[in-house]
C-alpha cells in the first residue's frame, strides 16, 4: 500500500507541475498571438486612440510579467481573476459553462463504457466471422467521419426530415436535463468516434488474450468458457482500454467544442471559443487550469485502475 501511496503522491506532484506548465504555455502563446484583446475588440474600427483607451481600461498596457504575477497571485487565493471583456469574475464563466459540458461528457461516458466494451467483446467472440467483419468496417467508417459532418448529417435526418428530435438546444440555456430530447443528437455525435476506437481496442486485447497460453491452459483445466472470457481474458484487455478511455475524455473536450457550437449548448467549449476570439486571456487561463487539473486527475485515475488490473503494465508506463 505504501508503494501505491507514493505512486499517487508522485503522480499528483507531476500533475501540479503539468498544470502550471500548461498555464504558462497558454499565457506565452496568447502573448505571442498577433494583436491583443484591445485590437480584437476594436474590430473594424481600429481607431488607434480607441485601441489605446481600451488597452488602458483593460490594464493591457502593463508588462506581461506583471499581469501574469497578478493573476498567479490571485490564483493562490482561489481567485481566477476577472474577464477582460465583461469584467465579470472568471469563476462565474466556468461555473455556468461547466454544467452543460459535464452533463454531455457524463452521459457520453455512461453510454460509451457499456457500448464500447460490449461491442469489443462481441467482436472478439465472433473473431473473423461476419459480425466481426461487419462491425469492424462500420466502426472504421464511422471513425473516419468528423464530428461536424456527422452532426450536420444527424440533424438533417433526425431533426429536419423525420422531425423526431429538436435540431438544436437553442433557448434552453443550461437547463438541458429538463429537455432530454435535445441531448440525444449531441451525445450521439460525441459517442460515435470513441465507441469505434474503444471497441476496436477491447477487441484486439481480447483476441490477443484469448489466444494466449494462460487462456489455453485455463481451457484445458475445463474452466467454463464465459469465465475464461470475462475473468481471465477481459481484465488483460482492460488496462489499455482504461488508459485509452482517459485519453478519450481529453479528446471529448475537443469534440464538445464542435458539438456545443453545432447544437448551441452554452458549455465550456463555447466559453473557450469566445474567449479565444476575444483574446480574453484570464478566461482562457482559467479554462486551461480547469482542463489541466481535469486531465491530470483523470489520467491518474486511469493509471490506478490499470495498475489494479494489470500491475505489470504500470512499470512500462
Amino acid at each position, binding site marked *: 500500500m505504501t508503494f501505491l501511496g507514493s505512486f499517487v503522491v508522485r503522480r499528483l506532484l507531476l500533475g501540479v507541475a503539468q498544470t502550471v506548465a500548461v498555464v504558462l504555455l497558454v499565457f506565452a502563446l496568447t502573448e505571442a498571438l498577433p494583436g491583443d484583446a484591445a485590437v480584437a475588440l476594436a474590430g473594424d474600427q481600429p481607431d488607434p486612440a*480607441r485601441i489605446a483607451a481600451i488597452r488602458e481600461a483593460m490594464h493591457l498596457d502593463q508588462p506581461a510579467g506583471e499581469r501574469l504575477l497578478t493573476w498567479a497571485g490571485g490564483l493562490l487565493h482561489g481567485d481566477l481573476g476577472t474577464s477582460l471583456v465583461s469584467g465579470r469574475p472568471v469563476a462565474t464563466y466556468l461555473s455556468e459553462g461547466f454544467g452543460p459540458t459535464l452533463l454531455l461528457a457524463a452521459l457520453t461516458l455512461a453510454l460509451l463504457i457499456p457500448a464500447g466494451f460490449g461491442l469489443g467483446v462481441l467482436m472478439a467472440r465472433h473473431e473473423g466471422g461476419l459480425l466481426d467483419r461487419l462491425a469492424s468496417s462500420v466502426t472504421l467508417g464511422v471513425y473516419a467521419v468528423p464530428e461536424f459532418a456527422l452532426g450536420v448529417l444527424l440533424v438533417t435526418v433526425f431533426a429536419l426530415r423525420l422531425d423526431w428530435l429538436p435540431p438544436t438546444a437553442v433557448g434552453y440555456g443550461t437547463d438541458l436535463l429538463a429537455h432530454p430530447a435535445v441531448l440525444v443528437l449531441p451525445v450521439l455525435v460525441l459517442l460515435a468516434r470513441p465507441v469505434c476506437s474503444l471497441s476496436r481496442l477491447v477487441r484486439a486485447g481480447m483476441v490477443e488474450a484469448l489466444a494466449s497460453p494462460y487462456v489455453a491452459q485455463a481451457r484445458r483445466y475445463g474452466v467454463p468458457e464465459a469465465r475464461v472470457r470475462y475473468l481471465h481474458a477481459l481484465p488483460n484487455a482492460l488496462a489499455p482500454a482504461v488508459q485509452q478511455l482517459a485519453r478519450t475524455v481529453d479528446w471529448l473536450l475537443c469534440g464538445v467544442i464542435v458539438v456545443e457550437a453545432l447544437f448551441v449548448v452554452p458549455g465550456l467549449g463555447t466559453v473557450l471559443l469566445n474567449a479565444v476570439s476575444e483574446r480574453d486571456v484570464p478566461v482562457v487561463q482559467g479554462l486551461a487550469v480547469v482542463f489541466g487539473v481535469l486531465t491530470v486527475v483523470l489520467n491518474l485515475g486511469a493509471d490506478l485502475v490499470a495498475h489494479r488490473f494489470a500491475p505489470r503494465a504500470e512499470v512500462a508506463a
Partner: protein
Amino acid sequence: MRDSWGRRGFLAAGAASLGALALTGCGGDDGGKSAGSGGGSPKRGGRLRAAFAGGGASENLDPHLANLFGDAARAKAQYDKLADYGADLSAQPRLAAKWEPNKTLDRWQVTLREAEFHDGRPVTAQDVLYSYRRIADPAKAFRAKASLEPIDLTASRATGARTIEFVLKRPTAEFPNVLAAFGAYIVPDKAADFDKRPVGSGPFRFVSFAPGRSAVFRRNDAYWEGAPHLDELEFVVANEESARVNALLGGQIEYAHELNPTTARAHEGHGQIEIVRLRGSAMQAFAMKTDRPPFDDPRVRQAFFLIADRQELVNGALSGAGVVGNDLFGKGYEYYAADLPQRAQDLAKARALLKAAGASDLKVTLDTSEVAAGFTEAAGIFRDQAKQAGVTVEVRVGSKDSYWSDILDSGVLACYRSGAMPIEAHISQRLLTDSTTNATHWRHKDFDAQYQQAQSTADPAQRAAVYARMQRRLYTEGGFLVWGFADWIIGTGRQVKGVDTKAPANTLGWARFDKVWLA
C-alpha cells in the same frame, strides 16, 4: 423622392408635426412591405425568438458597449436614440421630435418628444446630456465616442426639461447623423449598472438576461410610438450559421440573422422559411494605399479600377448575393452620385495606363483574411483578373483578429468592407487627413476643405452638389476599388410578418421587432 420627403424637407418647412407625420407614414409603408406577402393586418401577441451571432458569456446589456449586430439589436429593443437612419441612411427623428440649427450651423436646438422610461420617469434633456457625456468620457472607450466628437459637451446644456442646446466645435450640417450614430443610446441620468434591471425608453422592457444564452424582453405598452405587436421578444445566441438555420427550420426560433447566400438559395421560395435580403448592407472593396508605390500614381489606381470584373467578383465572392459597385461608397444612400457611368472591365486600357505609369510588370501583395465572408475568395478572383492585365498579385492571408488594425497602415492593397453609414460619415471617418481609420491614406487638403464646405452649407441642394464633386474625384482617382454591395440575409419563420425588407443592416428598419408580428 425619399430625399425630398426626408429630413431636408422637414427642416426647410420647419413644421415639426407635419414632418413627423410624413415620417410616421413612411414607417408604416415599410411595415406593409413585409417579408411575407399578404401579411394582412398586424396581430397582437406571441413571443418571437431571434438568433444572432453574439459575444458569448461576455455579453453585456450596456447599450453604449454595443459592438456586434446582436448587441445593437438588443439595445434597439430596449433603448432609443435621438435619431436613427432611414433606409437611405438619412437621419430620421426618434426621441428628438425636431432639431433646428442656428445660421452658422454650430448650435443646434433639439426638442425631445414626450416619452418615458420603463420605470415611468420622463425622458429629459438631463438624461440625454448624461448619456452623451458618459459615451464621451475620455477614460472610457465607447464605440460612439468618435461620432460624438463634434459636440462640445461642456458647453452644451439643457434649456428646458425637454430642450437641449448642443454647442458644436465647428459647423456641422449633418449634425442629425451624430444623433443617429451607432451606439448613441439614451439611458436614464446616472444609470451605470446595466446588467441588473436595466431601464430604457425603447419598445421592450427588460425581463431576464443570461449572458451568451438568452435575453428576454416584454412589450412596453407605454411606448411613445405605440406598443409593439409582440408580447415577448427573446434574443438567443447561436454563433454557428448552420445552428441558426437548423433552429429556424426546426421551429425553435422565428428569426435568424446573418445567413449565407448558399443557405438562402437552398431555401428561397420553398415555402418552409422566408428569406429577406437587405440590399446595400455591406460595401465590398479593395483598399489601395494612395501614399506609396505603386498606388501613389493615380494611373495605377485607374488601371486597377479597370482590371476588376465586378460581376465576376459578386458572383464568385458573394455567391451572387449582391450588386456591382462603382468605386463609390453608399449605393442608394442619400447624396450618392448615381449619375456617374458604371465602370466595367477594360484590360486594354488598364495595360495602357500601367505602361504609361511605367508599371507594366507590376507585382503587388493583396492582404486578405478570413475576417469577413468572401474576402479570401475575392482576393483569389482578383488575382486571376489582374493576371490578364499583366499584373502579378500575391495574396497574403493575415490574422483574423488583428486584420483591421494590421491593414490600417501597412501593406499596399487590402480587402475591405464596410457596413451601412451615411456617406458623410464614411468620408469623415476614412477620407480626411485626420480621419482615424483612413485605410487608403487619402489625405488632400482641398478634399478636407470641400468636406468642411459641405458641413457649413445649410442648403441641401448646394450641399448635395459639393458631395457630388467629392464623389466624382473619388471615382476618378480615389483609393477604394468598390466592386460590390453585399446583401444582408435574414431568415424568418413563415408566420413572421412586418419585417422591413428595404433597410440595410444597422438602420432603423433593421432588426426592428416592435413592428413585427406573428400571424
